[in-house]
C-alpha cells in the first residue's frame, strides 16, 4: 500500500477516531500515523477544531420553574397521596441494611409505645346484640355464682332481706332471675358498666392471647366467665350494701 492509499484510509477513520469509535488496534494505528504524517495531522486538526468549537458552545441550565411546573403536572395527577407515601416508605426501607435496620427499630419502638398507650383506651364496641348476650350470659353466671356461694352469703352477716332472697333463690330457680339478677343488672351493673369491666379486666388481659384471639366477644366472655366472677361479686356486694 503506497502512502496516498494509507493516508486516504487514515483520513476515512478520522471521524470515528475523534468520536472514539475505533477499536484499540485501529486507534493505535491512527495515532501512530498522525505523529508521522503532516497532511493527515492537518486534516485531523481541522476536524478537531470543528468538534471542540462546537463543544464549547454554552449549555443553559433549565429554569427552576420548569421542575415545579412539571412535577405539579405529572405527579399530582398521577396517584393518590397514600400510594406515594407507601412508595416513599418502601423506598426508605430499601436503604442499605444499617439504615433500614435502625429505621425498623425506631418504627417498632414507636408502635410499641403507641399500642401500650392505646391499650388503656381499647374498648371494643358493644352493640345491642352483644349486650343481650352479655346480659344473658352474666345473668346465668351470677345465678350460678349465688347458688354456689349461697351458704357463704347466708352466713356472712347480711341483712335478713337478702338472706331471705337467697333462700328464695335456692328454693325456686324460676324466680332467681326476676328477683335477684334483673335488679342487679339494672341498678348496679348497667350495660356500660359491664362493658367497662370486661374491657379493662378481661379484654385488656386476654385480647392478645393466641387462644382467645379467634373467639368472638360473646363466646370469649362466656369462656372467660370465671375470670370476671370476682368483679361481678364485688358489684353484687356493692348492690347489697346499697339496698340493705
Amino acid at each position, binding site marked *: 500500500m503506497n502512502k496516498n492509499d494509507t493516508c486516504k484510509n487514515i483520513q476515512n477513520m478520522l471521524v470515528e477516531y475523534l468520536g472514539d469509535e475505533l477499536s484499540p488496534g485501529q486507534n493505535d494505528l491512527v495515532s501512530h500515523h498522525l505523529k508521522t504524517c503532516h497532511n493527515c495531522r492537518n486534516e485531523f486538526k481541522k476536524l478537531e477544531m470543528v468538534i471542540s468549537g462546537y463543544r464549547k458552545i454554552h449549555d443553559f441550565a*433549565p429554569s427552576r420553574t420548569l421542575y415545579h411546573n412539571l412535577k405539579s403536572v405529572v405527579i399530582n395527577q398521577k396517584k393518590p397521596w397514600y400510594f406515594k407515601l407507601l412508595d416513599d416508605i418502601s*423506598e426508605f426501607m430499601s436503604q442499605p441494611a444499617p439504615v433500614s435496620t435502625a429505621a425498623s427499630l425506631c418504627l417498632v419502638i414507636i408502635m410499641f409505645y403507641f399500642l401500650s398507650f392505646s391499650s388503656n383506651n381499647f374498648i371494643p364496641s358493644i352493640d345491642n346484640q352483644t349486650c343481650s348476650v352479655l346480659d344473658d350470659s352474666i345473668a346465668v353466671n351470677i345465678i350460678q355464682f349465688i347458688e354456689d356461694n349461697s351458704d357463704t352469703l347466708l352466713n356472712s352477716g347480711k341483712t335478713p332481706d337478702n338472706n331471705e332472697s337467697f333462700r328464695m333463690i335456692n328454693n325456686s330457680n324460676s324466680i332467681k332471675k326476676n328477683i335477684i339478677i334483673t335488679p342487679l343488672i339494672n341498678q348496679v351493673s348497667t350495660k356500660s358498666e359491664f362493658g367497662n369491666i370486661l374491657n379493662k379486666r378481661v379484654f385488656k388481659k386476654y385480647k392478645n392471647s393466641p387462644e382467645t384471639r379467634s373467639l368472638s366477644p360473646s363466646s370469649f366472655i362466656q369462656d372467660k366467665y370465671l375470670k370476671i366472677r370476682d368483679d361481678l361479686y364485688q358489684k353484687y356486694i356493692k348492690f347489697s350494701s346499697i339496698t340493705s
Partner: protein
Amino acid sequence: MIYLTDEELIKKCASGSSTAFDELYNRYSNQLVNFICRIINDFPRAEDLFQETFIRVIENAEKFNDNYKFSTWIYRIAINLSYNELKRQKLVAAPVKIESEEEYYSTIYNNADYNDPQSKMEIRENQEKIQKGLSELSENHRIVFILKFHQELSYKEISLITGVSIGTVKSRIYYALQHLKEILEYLS
C-alpha cells in the same frame, strides 16, 4: 440511596413515586433541554418541549417495555417533538441569542480562553461559523451530529434512537463534520 437504573426509576414513577421522578428529572433535564435547544435553537421553547417529553414519558410509564433502554425511548420522544416544532415554526437554525457579549463569553468559555483576546475572537468566529454550518445541515444530519458530539452517545445508541442503521449514522456524521470543516475553511 441505592442506585437505580433509569428503567427501575420509570417503573416507580408509574406508581407515583415522587423521589423516582426527582431522580429521573435530575438525570435528564439538563442534557435533554440543551439537546432540544440545539435542534430548534430556542431555549424557552426547548424547555416547553422537554416538559412535554417528560409528561409523555410519565403518562406512558406503565407501558414501558423492559426490552428497551429508557434513554432511547425518551430521546426518541424528544426528537419527534423537535421535528414537529421545526415543521410548525419552519425554523431555520439561527445563532444562539446573545444578550451581553461580556457575560456571554465569561460564562461560555473558560477563563484562559476568555482572558486571551485573540483566543476569544477566534473562538467566537469559529462558533458562529459552526452555527451557520449547522443551520445549513438537514435535520437528520444535525440531530445525529448533536447526539454524537454534544450528547456523547455511541453510534449504536444513536442508531437505536434515530431508527437508522449504524452505517447511516456513520455517513451522516461524516458528512456533517466534513460540511462544517468546509464551512470553517471557506469562511476563514
